[in-house]
């Protein structure tokens, strides 16, 4: 999410189970093609090696499979490959299209794709990239929230990736045990549905973030969004997170 050079926003999807791996894959292709940007599917060893029987997923809608935004005939008359548009997405030609010849480079460029390092040019292109990056959220999968419809909770468990299933189960068990708890997980990590998390967080007295790393990478990010400290549960014990582990921590809280 953060590593890389300069201000280069990228889309990050972290599937939570076998079925969402499938969903993340076609979404990643869709985002990469439509938004012309880098997309990362974040898996861990446990998820990539787990075997599960699932129903054959439905074939994604046609709109996901052919997402390139091509220029109109009118636009091709004076074609600018990296045109600054309202959405930040510049219509893209496919090689072989007459009038659509362009040069693609990793160097900072102007609307015609020519190297351009001027301060105004760099600012305009960076704004354009962040503009389209933020647009991704408008059609991103929504966070999965499991609560009991109450106004306030004692513990809110926020999870991501392969520990999301265990976190959800832990919350369900806790509710049966009489604890007042709710669960929040998001496959979309970047751009992140910050508003949804802030709303969820406002209802919870305490927030617990279980995850499979030492430093609490997601917890650190989430506490910035929530603007308050969170309770961490970190595992680097070379085994996946189990719902009992989370439940144990919840009882202690």
């Amino acid at each position: 999410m953060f590593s890389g050079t300069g201000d280069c926003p990228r889309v990050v999807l972290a599937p939570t189970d076998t079925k969402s791996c499938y969903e993340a894959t076609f979404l990643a292709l869709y985002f990469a093609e439509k938004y012309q940007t880098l997309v990362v599917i974040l898996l861990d060893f446990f998820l990539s090696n787990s075997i599960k029987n699932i129903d054959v997923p439905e074939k994604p809608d046609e709109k996901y499979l052919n997402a390139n935004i091509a220029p109109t005939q009118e636009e091709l008359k004076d074609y600018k490959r990296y045109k600054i548009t309202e959405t930040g997405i510049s219509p893209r030609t496919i090689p072989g299209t007459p009038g659509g010849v362009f040069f693609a480079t990793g160097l900072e460029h102007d609307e015609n794709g020519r190297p351009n390092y001027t301060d105004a040019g760099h600012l305009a292109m960076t704004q354009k990239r962040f503009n389209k990056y933020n647009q991704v959220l408008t059609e991103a999968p929504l966070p999965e929230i499991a609560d009991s419809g109450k106004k306030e909770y004692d513990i809110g468990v926020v999870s991501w990736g392969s520990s999301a299933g265990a976190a959800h189960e832990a919350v369900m068990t806790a509710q049966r045990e009489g604890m007042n708890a709710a669960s929040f997980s998001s496959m979309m990590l970047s751009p992140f549905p910050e508003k949804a998390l802030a709303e969820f967080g406002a209802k919870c007295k305490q927030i617990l973030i279980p995850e499979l790393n030492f430093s609490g990478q997601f917890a650190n990010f989430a506490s910035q969004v929530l603007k308050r400290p969170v309770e961490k549960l970190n595992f680097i014990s070379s085994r996946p997170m189990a719902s009992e582990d989370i439940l144990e921590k919840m009882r202690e809280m």
Partner: protein
Amino acid sequence: MEQIRPEYLNEKIKTVKNDEFLKYRSGDLPTWCPGCGYFGIIDAWYKACRELELKHEEIVTVSGIGCSGRTPIFLNSYGFHTLHGRSIPVASGLKLAREDLTVFSVAGDGDALGIGGGHLPHVARGYAGDPKGLTHIIKEGILHKGFSFIQILTPCVTFDKENKTWKNLKENVHTLTPETHENSMDAAMRIAQDDPYGVGIIFQDKARPHYQDILKNLNKET
């Protein structure tokens, strides 16, 4: 200072226009040093494309990093400025997906030779100071079915004042006789190694099925 006669300029502009050079050339001025061999190379590239009547929108030039990496900026073709040393994988992927396009991968010594060339079924060597011979080689390379590798000898006028200079290249570069060594891998290897200044088509295997054909057959069988 001697004044340039306007008639002379007009005449020159007319010739250039008639040559249809501008069709393959972008409006950008090359960033290369004065006297660089790359000017000769793109000149031969323009000529080869024009003589084969290629449509400029059906050409893709893929490059890596460096002086050679800048090449696609100055060509009016679809261009892709990729990572350092990674122009060949991008170009081969492109060609696999779109057989109808003419795909060039441009790379300098560090960019391509630094990571090795792999198996090269059609090898030729040209010289930037011999535009006519180089045009011929590029044309043959385009017409060859499959992957063609063209090594072009060109001086770096800024960083090499001693070894491969225009003067030394001019003295040493010679056309190979016979020009083509079809199907004789042994002879071709000997020339490539022992005669570093011999230019021409060193090896061409016309009988070998190219990768796309093999792939098509594979797809048929499965």
